[in-house]
C-alpha cells in the first residue's frame, strides 16, 4: 500500500508540474503576447513596452517560469486587471461558496442515487426490468441535458414562475436561511446530473456484483436476497463506485461554472467568467490551474481511499 501511495504521489506531482507548465506556456502563446492581450487597444508603443517590462515579459523564459512557480507556491496570484484586487484574496472569498454548493451536491447525490441505483439493480437481477429500464432511460436523458439549459428551465419554473426561490440577491454568511434559499436551486440543478450518472454507475456495479459466484455461495448458505445484498453486494460494489465519484467531480466543477453564471452566485466560476469578460487572461489561467489542481487532488485522494477499501491491495 505504501508503495502504491508513493508511486501515485509521484505521478500526482508530475501531473501538477505538467499542468502548471502547460498553462504557463499557453499564456505565452497568446497571439501578440500577454501584455497586448490584456491591454487590448488601450495601450501601444511605449506604454505597452512599459507594461511588458512590468509584467516581466522581457526576462528570459526560464526565469519567468521559475518566478511563476514561485508565485504559485507563495500563493501570490497577482492582481486582477481591472480592479487591481489581489486574486488570491478574491479566490479565498469565492471558494467557500463554490465548495458549499459542491458539498451539498455530493451529499444530495449520494443519498439519492445509491439507494435508487441499488434498487434498480436488485429488481433487474430478479428479472423485473421495468424500474431498471425506466431508470436507465431517464438517467440517460437527464445526463444529456445541457446544464445551462436545465438551469434556465429550473430558473424559469421554480424561481420566476412559481416564485419559490429567489433568482438573485446578495449572499452573506450571516443569514443562513437566505443562503440556503439562494443556493437551493443551483444545487438542485447540479445534483440532477450527478444523480443521473451516479445512479447508473451504482446500478451497473451492483448488478455485476449480484451475478458473482460468492453471492451464490451466500444464498446457498441460507441468506435471503436482501441479506445478501447488504452483507456482500454493497461492499463489493462500493469499490468501482468510489472510482467514479472522483471522476464525476470534474463534471461537477464544470457545472459550478455554469450555474454560478446563470444564478449569479459569487463563487469561483463567477470570478472566472468575469475574468474572461474583462479579458484578464492571467487570472483566467490561474483559476483554471486552480480547478485542475483541485480535481487532480480529489482524484488522488479517492484513489487511495478506494485502495484501502480493497484488502487485496494491502500487502
Amino acid at each position, binding site marked *: 500500500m505504501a508503495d502504491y501511495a508513493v508511486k501515485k504521489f509521484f505521478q500526482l506531482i508530475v501531473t501538477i508540474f505538467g499542468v502548471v507548465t502547460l498553462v504557463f506556456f499557453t499564456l505565452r502563446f497568446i497571439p501578440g503576447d500577454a501584455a497586448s492581450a490584456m491591454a487590448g487597444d488601450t495601450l501601444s508603443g511605449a506604454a505597452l513596452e512599459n507594461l511588458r517590462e512590468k509584467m516581466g515579459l522581457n526576462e528570459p523564459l526560464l526565469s519567468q517560469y521559475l518566478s511563476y512557480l514561485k508565485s504559485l507556491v507563495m500563493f501570490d496570484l497577482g492582481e486582477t486587471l481591472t480592479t487591481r484586487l489581489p486574486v488570491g484574496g478574491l479566490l479565498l472569498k469565492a471558494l467557500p461558496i463554490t465548495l458549499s454548493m459542491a458539498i451539498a451536491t455530493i451529499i444530495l447525490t449520494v443519498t439519492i442515487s445509491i439507494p435508487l441505483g441499488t434498487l434498480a439493480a436488485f429488481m433487474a437481477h430478479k428479472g423485473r426490468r421495468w424500474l431498471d429500464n425506466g431508470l436507465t432511460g431517464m438517467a440517460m436523458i437527464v445526463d444529456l441535458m445541457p446544464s445551462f439549459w436545465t438551469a434556465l428551465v429550473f430558473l424559469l419554473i421554480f424561481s420566476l414562475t412559481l416564485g419559490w426561490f429567489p433568482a438573485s440577491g446578495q449572499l452573506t454568511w450571516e443569514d443562513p436561511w437566505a443562503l440556503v434559499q439562494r443556493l437551493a436551486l443551483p444545487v438542485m440543478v447540479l445534483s440532477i446530473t450527478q444523480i443521473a450518472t451516479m445512479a447508473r454507475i451504482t446500478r451497473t456495479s451492483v448488478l455485476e456484483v449480484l451475478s458473482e*459466484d460468492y453471492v451464490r*455461495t451466500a444464498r446457498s448458505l441460507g441468506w435471503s436476497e436482501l441479506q445478501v445484498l447488504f452483507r456482500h453486494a454493497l461492499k463489493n460494489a462500493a469499490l468501482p463506485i468510489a472510482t467514479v465519484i472522483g471522476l464525476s467531480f470534474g463534471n461537477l466543477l464544470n457545472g459550478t461554472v455554469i450555474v454560478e453564471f446563470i444564478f449569479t452566485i459569487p463563487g469561483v466560476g463567477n470570478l472566472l467568467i468575469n475574468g474572461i469578460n474583462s479579458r484578464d487572461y492571467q487570472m483566467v489561467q490561474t483559476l483554471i490551474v486552480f480547478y485542475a489542481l483541485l480535481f487532480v487532488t480529489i482524484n488522488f485522494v479517492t484513489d487511495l481511499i478506494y485502495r484501502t477499501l480493497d484488502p487485496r491491495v494491502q500487502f
Partner: protein
Amino acid sequence: MNYQAPLQTALLEVQDLKTEFHTDGGTVTAVDGVSFAIERGERVAVVGESGSGKSAMAMSILRLLAYPGIVAGGKVILEGTDITTLSERKLNSIRGRIVGTVFQDPMSSLDPVMTVAKQMIAPIMRNLGLSKDDARAEAIKWLDKVGIPEPERRIEAYPYEMSGGMRQRVMIAMALSCNPQLVIADEPTTALDVTIQAQIVELMKTLTAEAGAAMMFITHDMGLVARFAHKVAVMYAGRIVEFGPVDEIFANPCHPYTQSLLGTIPSADMVKEDRLPQIEGTPPDMKFPIKGCAYKDRCAGAHDRCAVEAPVLDSRGPHHTAACWLPKGLENTKSLKTEKTQRKLRNDNTEPHVVVELNELRKHFVSNQVFSPSKSMTVRAVNGVNLRVWNGQTLGVVGESGCGKSTVARLMLGLEKPTSGDIFIAGLPQMVFQDPASSFNPKMKIGAILEEPLVVKNVGDKHSRTEKIQTLIRQVGLDPSYLSRYPHQLSGGQKQRVAVARALALNPAVVVADEPTSALDVSVRAQIINLLADLKDELGVSFVFISHDLLTVRYISDQIAVMYLGEVVEYGPADEVFAHPAHPYTRALIDAVPVPNPAIEKTRTNAPLSGELPSPLNLPTGCPFASRCPMVTDRCRAEKPILPPHKTSRQVACHYAQ
C-alpha cells in the same frame, strides 16, 4: 415415468424435474424431465458434459437458478416435504442447514472483501443456533478437520491470501459446518491441480462418511466417479440416460453414450497403435426441442424408432436403469471394440536426428519494485531444463500449476527470451494453444487465418496458397466450406482442428500443443487426440504435448518428462515411466489420477500427497520436492539431485530412486 421407486428412507427424491431458461434468443430447456433418488449417506455422481443440464439440475433443487432460469415442472421431495412449492423464506431455512453446497471455482466463490471468519461464523450461528463464541469454535474445529494448518490464525485471513486448494477446503468446511444431510458439490475439483484434487476428493469422502451426509457430486470425470460414488446418474441433453450402482455402470454400461464415454478414455492396457474410439459430432443445442432420442445423431446404433420416440428409463438390472431402445446399447451393433482400427504406421526411412534440444534452460521473471528494491521478487519459472526430442517422436510434458511447462513451451516458440541456456529447434516450431476462443482473430475468416502463415513467410502465390489451405482443412477433417466462416461460428472442437491446421501450414518439424484438449468437452477430446496421432504418423511431425491429463499423455507420447517447480524430475519412455514411476512425485501424480474402473479404484491405497504446491517465488535449496516428499531426508533438503543431461534412457532426479 419409469424409475425405481425408492425406499421409504430416501433423503431426496426428484420427480420429473423440468427447468427452462427464458433468454432473449429463445427458451432453452436445460433440464427435461429428470427423476432419481438419493438415500441417506449415499454418494451419487451426476456425470455429463456441457449442455447436459447437470449444473442446472443441481441448482434447481435448491431454486438457486439465476434469472432467467426457472423451474418449470416436477417435484423435489426432501425428507418427505415437497420443496418446490415452499416459500422463499422457508427455503432459506433449508439452504445451508439441511442442504449444503460446494461450488466449482474456489477463486470466485468466496467474498474477496470479507474474512473467512465473517463468512463462516454467521451461517453457523444462524443454522445451528449457537452463540458467537461457540460458532467460532465450531468453525475453527471444521477448518482443522479439512486440513487447514493453524486454523485459529487462518480464520481471520482474507480469501486472496489462500491458494485454490485451501479455498476449496474452506468452502467444504463452510458447507459441512452446518451439519447438512445432503451436500451438493458442483464440479468441486475441476479447477484444481491433480494432486490437490486427490486430496480434496479423499477429504470429502471421509468427512461425509463421518457425518453420515449424502452427497450429489457433479462431474465430467469418469475416473472421479469410479473413485468416489456409490451410484451414478449419466446425463445427456437434459435427461438422465442411465442410472445405477457404480460397479454395474462401469462393468455393464447399457446406454450407448455411457459406453462410448467410457471407451474414449485411454485405458492402461491400450497400445498406441490402437485408435482411440471417438464420439462424432457435438452435444445438441438445447434451444431447440428434440424429437425422439437426443443422442441419435451421434449414436452408432441409431435406428428409426430413435428418431420418433424418446426412450424412457427402463430397468436393466437391480437398481440399474437406462433409457435406450437397444437393451444392451452398442454391444450387439457396431461394437466399440471393432472400432479400434489399427493405425497406419509410417514407414520412415529418415535418419533419426534431434529436432529439439534444450540445454540448461532457465527463465527468471523479475518484478522490480522501484520504491523498495528489497521487495523485488524473482520467479524462477524454468530452472535448468535439459530435453531432447527426436524426429517423429512425441514428448509428453506433465506437471501441475507452477511447474513451468507452459513457460518452456513459450521459450521453445520464441515467445519469451531465455534468461540463460540454449534452445535448438529444427525449423520454425508452431503451437496449438489451450484456449480455442482466443486463438483466432475474431475478425478474420478461417481461410485467411490458415493462409496467414503462408502470406507472412511469402510462400508461393495466391493460387498455390489457396490449394494448400484446402488441403489443410481437409487434413484436419473439416469440409472446405468452413474456410469462409468466422471463428465464432465454430464449436470448440472445430476450432481446435483449425488450430492444428494452422500449425501445420508451414510444414513444421515441431509442433507444441499446450493443453489442447483441456477446454473441450470430454466426448470431443478423443477426436482431437486421434487427429494429432494420425498427423504424427502421416507427416512425421514431432509433437511436444503438454498436459496435466496423464492418461492422454501416456497414450499419445513416446517419451515423458515430468516437471516440478521448473525442473525435470523424471524422464523416460512413456509406458515405462507410467508402469514403474521412479520419482516420488511421479508416483504421487499417477496415484492421484483416478482411473475409470471402480474395481481398481477400490484396491488403491489412496494416500494422497500432502501439502500445497509451492510457489516458484521461494525456491528451496536442495530438492524442490523436499517439502512434500514422503521419503525426504536431510540430504534431500541440502543437496539437489541432478539429472544427467540427455541420457536417452530413464533419468530420475532423486537421491533414493529405485
